């Protein structure tokens, strides 16, 4: 896969067209959310991006991240208890920490984020009307605020992620939203199982396994979760 740093920033319109194209097709929600976090990194010039969703019981869980590095995933997951993402989720408003070294509010989170080399973090709410369903989390290695324009684009991307989650079905009912959120969270677990399986079979690490899983799905025009299920069921194999 092409590295983000090797690529020029894509025009904003291209990204929105890509997302819209995906949404009208039969698509895999996790693959879609993963792409979205990658586009966040490219468009907003941040170091890493991740999406956290509520599990229906008020906890946040990671569903997609621009990199599957374990340390990064752990950093997102740490925010189950405390951190800008949780605050953003609870209040439904954006939370920005321009300099982690001066932030006192989340001692465990800020320590871990600093150790991982991050200097600033931003969280944007994923909202459907009055309901907050999660947050888009952006990490920066340099301190500083995100400018207004980038915040607007980031919020638009968070909104697209919300729409993507609601997929084909009517979105008026809260029950439908609950069903979709649960299905997305379970897909994430499925992806982890498939990552482990591939990592062991090909003797690679789990982050590499994710890359192979995703590119195989793409190359064969398969939904990421369908391929993952077939691997876990043992009905299909993937070559390195």
């Amino acid at each position, binding site marked *: 896969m092409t590295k983000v740093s090797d690529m020029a920033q894509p025009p904003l319109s291209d990204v929105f067209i890509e997302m819209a194209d995906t949404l009208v097709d039969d698509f895999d929600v996790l693959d879609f959310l993963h792409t979205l976090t990658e586009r966040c990194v490219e468009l907003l010039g941040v170091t890493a991006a991740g999406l956290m969703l509520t*599990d*229906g*019981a*008020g*906890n946040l*869980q990671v569903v997609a991240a621009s990199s599957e590095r*374990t340390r990064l*995933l752990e950093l997102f*997951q740490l925010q*189950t208890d405390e951190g800008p993402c949780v605050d953003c989720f609870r209040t439904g408003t954006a939370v920005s920490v321009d300099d982690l070294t001066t932030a006192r509010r989340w001692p465990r989170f800020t320590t871990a984020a600093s150790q991982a080399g991050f200097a600033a973090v931003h969280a944007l709410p994923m909202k459907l009307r009055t309901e907050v369903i999660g947050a888009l989390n952006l990490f920066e290695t340099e301190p500083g605020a995100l400018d207004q324009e980038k915040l607007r684009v980031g919020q638009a991307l968070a909104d697209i992620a919300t729409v993507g989650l609601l997929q084909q079905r*009517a979105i008026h*009912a*809260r*029950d*439908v939203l*609950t*069903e*979709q959120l*649960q*299905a997305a969270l*379970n*897909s*994430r*677990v*499925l*992806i*982890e*199982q*498939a*990552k*482990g*399986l*591939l*990592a*062991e*079979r090909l003797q690679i690490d*789990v982050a590499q396994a994710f890359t192979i899983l995703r590119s195989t799905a793409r190359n064969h025009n398969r939904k990421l979760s369908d391929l*993952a*299920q077939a691997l*876990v*069921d*043992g009905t299909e194999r993937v070559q390195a």
Partner: protein
Amino acid sequence: MPISDRRLQLWDLVVEQARGSPAAVGHVGAVGIAVVCVDATAVAVTLAASPREVVYTSDQVAEELEELTMTLGEGPGVDALTDGPALAADLNDTSCQLRWPMFAPAAVALGVRAVFALPLQVGGIHLGVLDLYRSEPGSLDREQFTDALLLADTACALLLDAGVGAGDGRRPEEAGLQHPEVHQATGMIVAQIGVSAAIALVRLRAYAYAHDQRLRDVAANVVARRLRFPPETRAATDPGDHHSA
């Protein structure tokens, strides 16, 4: 209340329901009636031999609805086996009638207006479904839904740990644990010993139980390749015997 405390409370109710016998999924179903405020519950499991085996029904109505689901091959309880929760707040709604054209009217005729079917699943592992039935229409509120999810997770854990330390009253570890290593380790064990994902998870949990370690710690060792299944000290030719490892 923190979710972990609620989980404990619900487990106590399940144990109470079991009245001294080993806790089983049926007890979870019985607890569901009171805490989620429904009228009837049922638990169906998926076995290799049959796609849907009803293992618990709280009463006659639940039994009839399970039979209906089985006969028609549709309904929230079918969708939840593979697609995640299926929440039908009012079976008379057009959306429900369209989604389950045969099941919805038939269930209403049996006096049921709302069905909440929760999958007993861990990622790609599909163990069964917990069906909650209510004669009054209406969505579950947030607390009820949370309790239903916690009960479904408890049922999963009981199914996975059946035969492991059964009856010693220890609370099983969460099935849908939020630690990705647990699920990665499950996948790795599938590749290591060539079993289904369900069996891989059963063995991972059994190992943690037998060694009195946290599931996530055992899983982290598997992912870091410090632990293999079967462990290298055991005969590699004997992959079938792992519960004792």
